[in-house]
């Protein structure tokens, strides 16, 4: 029994990383007033290029950083469109999501010459901190915790955080006091996308060790749901991410336990994360208040 609990706990921690990283990024971006629904595409592309960077450099950590870099570039694109060109916040995200489908479908055979999926060799994957008989603990888990707590602290205790929140709530007020609205919005957008990129590379060079066309499996969207659930609060996004991670992991666990999957078809458990998302979001909507200028471009009159 204890083995099972420890095993599920470890699995949940492992599964929560990409969701929590992306949610934390999304919280910062939206606190500054920039909506980005392209995280799904960022996860996907970062997973692909992260694996490529890891294998060409021979270092899994370079792979993770490379994924974050891809996220950063996509964040800069999104920031340029939404913040500086005052464009719509939704359309570029849709664009990135669709682009990612093509890039990954084309990228896997182009890079590795295999169709559909690519197995990342073990020596190019992040090595666990601890290996137990119940599972392993990736160094990305403590790193994720650290990122969440630092982000939370910066957001609520420093001038940078205050300005980020101000430009997302009332950019006019911030502007009148000499706060450069565009700069903080852009920085927050790039930060959000960079964290998603890190989460995407984690999928391929750490946790799953594989690149497929469906590797993100909606985690970018789940992360957005989790962001809403958290009330735009990084620490609460960590808790929410754990819940989502638990269900995500549960489906993997059922699938790999023939004894259980004979009773409950694993396909049923596999839909759990999505059902939980719907229930949580439906339950929370209207109860939390998004930043007031979330998703609205700001232009001085």
């Amino acid at each position, binding site marked *: 029994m204890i083995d099972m609990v420890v095993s599920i706990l470890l699995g949940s921690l492992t599964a929560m990383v990409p969701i929590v990283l992306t949610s934390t990024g999304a919280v910062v971006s939206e606190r500054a007033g920039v909506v980005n629904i392209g995280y799904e595409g960022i996860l996907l592309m970062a997973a692909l290029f992260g694996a490529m960077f890891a294998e060409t450099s021979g270092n899994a950590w370079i792979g993770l950083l490379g994924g974050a870099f891809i996220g950063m570039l996509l964040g800069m694109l999104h920031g340029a469109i939404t913040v500086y060109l005052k464009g719509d916040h939704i359309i570029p995200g849709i664009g990135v999501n669709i682009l990612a489908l093509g890039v990954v479908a084309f990228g896997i055979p182009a890079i590795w010459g295999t169709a559909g999926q690519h197995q990342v060799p073990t020596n190019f994957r992040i090595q666990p901190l601890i290996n137990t008989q119940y599972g392993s603990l990736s160094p990305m888990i403590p790193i994720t915790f650290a990122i969440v707590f630092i982000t939370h602290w*910066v957001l609520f205790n420093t001038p940078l955080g205050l300005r980020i929140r101000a430009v997302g709530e009332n950019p006019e007020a911030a502007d009148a006091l000499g706060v450069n609205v565009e700069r903080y919005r852009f920085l927050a957008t790039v930060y959000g996308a960079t964290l998603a990129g890190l989460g995407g590379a984690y999928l391929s060079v750490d946790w799953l060790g594989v690149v497929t066309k469906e590797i993100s499996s909606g985690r970018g969207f789940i992360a957005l749901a989790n962001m809403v659930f958290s009330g735009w609060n990084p620490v609460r996004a960590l808790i929410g991410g754990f819940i989502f991670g638990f269900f995500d992991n549960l489906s993997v666990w059922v699938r790999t336990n023939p004894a259980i999957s004979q009773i409950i078809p694993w396909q049923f458990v596999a839909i759990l994360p999505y059902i939980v998302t719907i229930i949580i979001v439906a339950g929370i909507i209207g109860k939390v208040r998004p930043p007031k200028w979330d998703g609205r471009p700001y232009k001085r009159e």
Partner: protein
Amino acid sequence: MEEVPIIDMKGIVKIYPDGTKALKGVDFSVKQGEIHGLLGENGAGKTTLMKILSGMLPPTEGKIYVKGREVQFKSPADALANGIGMVHQHFTLVEVFDALHNIILGMEGHGHFSKIDVDNARKKLQKLMDELNFQVPLDVPVENLPVGVQQRIEILKVLYRNVDVLILDEPTAVLTPIEVKELFDVLRTLKEQGKTIIFISHKLREVMEITDRVTVLRKGEVIGTVNTSEATPQLLARMMVGRDVVLRIQKPPKEPGEPILRVENLWVKGDRGEDAVKGLSFEVRAGEIFGIAGVEGNGQTELIEAITGLRKIEKGKIILNGKDITGRPPKELYNLGVAHIPEDRTHMGLILDMTVAENAVLGLHWREEFTGILNSIRWSNVKEHAKKLIEKFDIVAPGVDAPVKSLSGGNQQKLIVAREVSKNPELIVASQPTRGVDVASTEYIRNYLVKLRNENKAVLLVSADLDEVLQLSDRMAIMYEGQFVGIVKPEEVTEEQIGLMMGGIKDES
């Protein structure tokens, strides 16, 4: 030797992108340490002038000198750096932040990543508040605080940046009488401390009470600057209202008939939950134009919205043709014969991206003549109707399929009048019917309202344009802070009396 004024604006011209000439070469100068009133009617250019001084708007032409040195402001932050700060009529506060964080935003201390020194900021603010002799709660989200307190936070926000010149735009508009008194105490304290204050207002009594000098603006020009001690409300009223060339309106005498609209003890709340209309009672009779004059923001909008079914009525009754219509929805009111020419044609009157034909039947589109199978719209009839309106009202439009936004302001407004009149109403509610409309269309619309009156319709006219109300009305009321200061006949009052009444003073003589 003459001392150098702290603020000196020379030849300020402001032309908005849409061509509106808001300021026509204004000279404005303020002495160190005075409270300087800026008085004028709506649209006189007071706010525009001060937005230029506070860096919100760039002037089209003109120069600004601060303590004799020429400055150019690219943003409000530039003006703040030069010691000029403005408290806007609509507050710019981050609602979910507390007062402290609203105030320190943008100058929190050193370094982006260092912890904000809240205790130090609190000490500085406490000291500032002690000096000013007022307190605000620093830890409550400002959205939970009353407007008067929010205003003080705005004032603190500006003073925290060590400004010398504080601009207040209509600061008393949202305040209760007690809050006004408290605000004035604060302003006097600031003056004692050597601060210079520019006080924008249209309220004569307040200007007389608090200012040292007053500059009066009218239609983008300075009428004059006077010492308050040498001024009388009568003088200021005359300067503020003035009178310009009147348009020719033919208005034969007419005996009004039965009351069409009766309003009894009407109470309506404004957007902020304050009482905007306070127990109004009046009637509008058939064959009569009843005008409501007054500076905007004294409850006219709320009154009109209540009568046309767009705003909730707290108390009182509205009776149309003997039928109680209190709280009935707009569509029902239209069916009973109410037509509405709304004050904001681009937002309420028309849908700019839709065509002339579509706009011509808005609110009529469900009528039998315009609908076909399964309630689908019969476009042939709609277009026919639009063509008739264009012809009858002399509307200049590229065609019935052109989007309404391609029409000039005057023609847009004529289209609204045409549409509303085609409903064949008993009562026409016209709010600012000629605002931003060219002279020819203005004359047409005004004459048309008189024509409706001659045809025995009842017309309720609300306008910030005093001339319009004076010319058209058979009877007129002057509205001030949700009440009528008086109901008079235009030909029986002087402009001075009306100016005083618009400033809330009833002349008993």
